[in-house]
């Protein structure tokens, strides 16, 4: 499961626009370290904790 899929599982109300227009920016530097949250500027939803992300199956 990708980071994006985990975040959508936590916050199903998010839409693609939130990720494309810099409210939330997920990034992958193509350096083998995988996806990460670059920016989280969503006006109402809190950045998920690592514990929340790890809890998504």
């Amino acid at each position, binding site marked *: 499961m*990708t*980071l*994006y*899929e985990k975040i959508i599982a936590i916050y199903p109300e998010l839409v*693609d626009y939130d*990720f*494309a227009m*810099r409210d939330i*920016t*997920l*990034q*992958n*530097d*193509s350096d083998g370290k995988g*996806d990460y949250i*670059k920016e989280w500027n969503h006006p109402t939803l809190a950045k998920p904790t690592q514990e929340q992300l790890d809890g998504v199956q």
Partner: protein
Amino acid sequence: MDGGIMSTVKSKKLQVGTDATASNNFTIYQPDTPDGTLKIGVGNADSPTEVAQVTSSGLSVTGNLSVTGSVPANTGPAFSAYLSANQTISSSTFTKVQFNTEEFDTNSNYDNATNYRFTPTVAGYYQINSSIRYDASTTPTRALISIYKNGSDFKRGNDLGNNSTQSVISTLIYFNGSTDYIECWVYITASTAVVGTAGPIFTYFQAHLARAA
């Protein structure tokens, strides 16, 4: 020097021509307050109209320039690189595209092995182009290119909707000639996000010096 005789004339202005019509004469002169320029003007020495000036960095012409010989071409850095194989990425995640095959890289300023970035060593304004093909079979619903400058989202291309297959960007970016660099990143929303290739035709990244700093 000829015959051991050398003379030096020191003057701020030298008028060439003594015609009664001032515009038939020329003046080579230094500004009233010397600033390192030598000016060439049309007219008498008392009121020349500047048409060109010479400095330590070269010649600049106020009006039109006509050259009957050849003009040296712009020899600034230029590169073009493409993907040699599809790159699968995570949906809705900005990902650096690994353009790993060079068509040309005139100044060895593009890194096609580790960081996939262009770091020109000549300061100036660079024309940047990129085109990316998406795998339509994965039914992408959104796709766009972003040129990152020094690690940050800097200029974006067209933002495509459903069943996108090809995105492009063309932009102009200033580089300081030492530390500034750019990379090409992509954002795709799809069941399986794939940056597609078909050799150098559809998915490429290019830049060249358009104007020196």
